[in-house]
């Protein structure tokens, strides 16, 4: 029981349950089967992208570009499949490589040219979408391939395929961050890059790798996005970077770096998408939704920054938690 109370999963899980409860009470159709499965599908894209955001944040950086990367990558994907006749599996591999390439640009500028990631990726946020508009005269590419939608809407043993992707990807990411030298090193550079360097870690290469991983995660998100709508569009993914960052931060990742937990990010993604879903069902206009998402990010980051003070408050309220 104490182990459960001390578990880092608890806080984000509680946050999500609270959000889900409030949404369920205030929103008539929230618990409809149709809406819930829609919600699950919606989560998958944010959750996949958020893996990358979390890894970058743990490594001490920030990635603001995945939304735009997704726009660009869905266009590349759609054009490859529809106009260049490249078979789907090959196109998928190429899109993943392209995503890694975009991540490598961010990583190179940040790690090797020492431009803060906030700047490099905000530049990429602008530039990637700009490039996305250069394809196909800036028009979306519809009806890409009849088989494409299966990637997103297909089921296996009665469960939607994206669920399997999520479980697989999160297992790999969790394992890598928890049980491999790479993961441990990423925590170390995010916690104290100078100390990590003095310990002999290749800090630049590790930083570079975090952005590369984020690029791959964005590519996987792009494939899901393209499959979901059977199209590519330079307008896709607007604001997705914020949802992904919010997912990481709600999951306990610290924007200061060095702290975060991949599994909690999944719960964070569930939370942020539940909020969005509830707002949609209540017909809250997009403009107001954006304000609310912004507020959630500020509060989540605030909770991280004030965790010492808040810990004192919680300790005072729940004295039992203090005794080990």
């Amino acid at each position, binding site marked *: 029981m104490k182990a459960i109370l001390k578990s880092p999963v608890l806080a984000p899980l509680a946050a999500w349950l609270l959000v889900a409860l409030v949404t369920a009470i205030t929103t008539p159709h929230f618990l409809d089967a149709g809406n819930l499965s829609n919600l699950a599908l919606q989560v998958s894209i944010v959750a996949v992208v958020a893996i990358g955001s979390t890894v970058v944040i743990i490594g001490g950086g920030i990635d603001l570009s995945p939304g735009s990367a997704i726009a660009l990558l869905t266009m590349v994907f759609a054009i490859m499949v529809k106009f260049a006749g490249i078979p789907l599996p090959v196109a998928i591999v190429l899109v993943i490589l392209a995503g890694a390439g975009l991540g490598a640009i961010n990583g190179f500028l940040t790690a090797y040219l020492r431009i803060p990631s906030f700047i490099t990726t905000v530049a990429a946020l602008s530039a990637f979408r700009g490039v996305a508009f250069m394809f196909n005269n800036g028009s979306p590419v519809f009806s890409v391939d009849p088989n494409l939608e299966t990637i997103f809407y297909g089921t296996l043993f009665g469960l939607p395929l994206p669920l399997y992707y999520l479980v697989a990807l999160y297992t790999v990411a969790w394992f890598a961050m928890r*049980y491999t030298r790479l993961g441990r090193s990423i*925590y*170390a550079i995010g916690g104290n890059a100078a100390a990590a360097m*003095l310990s002999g870690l290749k800090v630049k290469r590790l930083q570079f790798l975090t952005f590369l991983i984020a690029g791959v995660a964005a590519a996987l998100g792009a494939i899901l996005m393209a499959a979901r709508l059977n199209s590519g569009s330079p307008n896709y993914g607007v604001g997705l970077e914020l949802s992904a960052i919010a997912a990481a931060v709600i999951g306990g990742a610290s924007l200061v770096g060095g702290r975060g937990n991949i599994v909690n990010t999944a719960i964070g993604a569930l939370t942020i998408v539940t909020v969005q879903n509830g707002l949609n069902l209540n017909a809250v206009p997009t403009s107001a939704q954006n304000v609310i998402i912004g507020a959630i990010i500020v509060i989540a980051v605030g909770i991280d920054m004030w965790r010492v003070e808040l810990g004192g408050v919680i300790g005072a309220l729940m004295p039992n938690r203090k005794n080990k």
Partner: protein
Amino acid sequence: MLEKATPLVELQHIKLAFGGIHAVDDVSIDLYPGEVVGIVGHNGAGKSCLIKVLSGAYQRDEGKILIEGKEATINNPRDAKAYGIETIYQTLAVADNVDAAANLFLGRELKTGWGTLDDVAMEAETRKIMGRLNPNFERFKTPVVALSGGQRQSVAIARAIYFNARILIMDEPTAALGPQETQQVGELIRQLKADGIGIFLISHDIHDVFDLSDRVAVMKNGRMVGTARTEDVTKDEVLGMIILGKCPPAAVPGPGAIVDA
């Protein structure tokens, strides 16, 4: 007595500048196996900069590093570690967000047969070595940030000695320690010395330096005032070297010595 052996380390004519500041200016120093060389000097004398050149944290502008008589390539901390050079930095370069074991093995993690991190083995090893260094240490699962200065220092020391260093650099290793732990570090230095490890010991505590060092090297304004066997000089003479840059007769003067008119 050791004059005939090859020095473990020779730093020759090392220069390091930051913009216009000559942090290290034409400094030469050597270290023999089983020897403790104390490096002393005022704040800003260039002690830390000098040893950071050896530990690979800074890249020198000029000069040579020889390890056992052969020229060594040391351009980063990894290179230095490959030569068996371990460092306890004055600023305690520990990763605050992970625990003692993760710090001890950072970049050199123990792995299981599957290639994954062997946290159990790493913690066991950490307990062993901490038991030697700081028997009261118990917070093995806590991120280092939550430890006291002395506890963090023991983690840094444990990390430096765990990997069988041949050359140990200790920059103010006892600065945050209580009297008991300071004594333990002194014991440890004697023990490592007996094992044939060469140690550069930087300290502001002249008594410690005299207690533990075979030789003392004095720096002033980035330059070497001189070196002397501790048994040949008095504390007052060394203070004279530190404050005035005056080299007593028993010391070997360096380029930074004031030549008496």
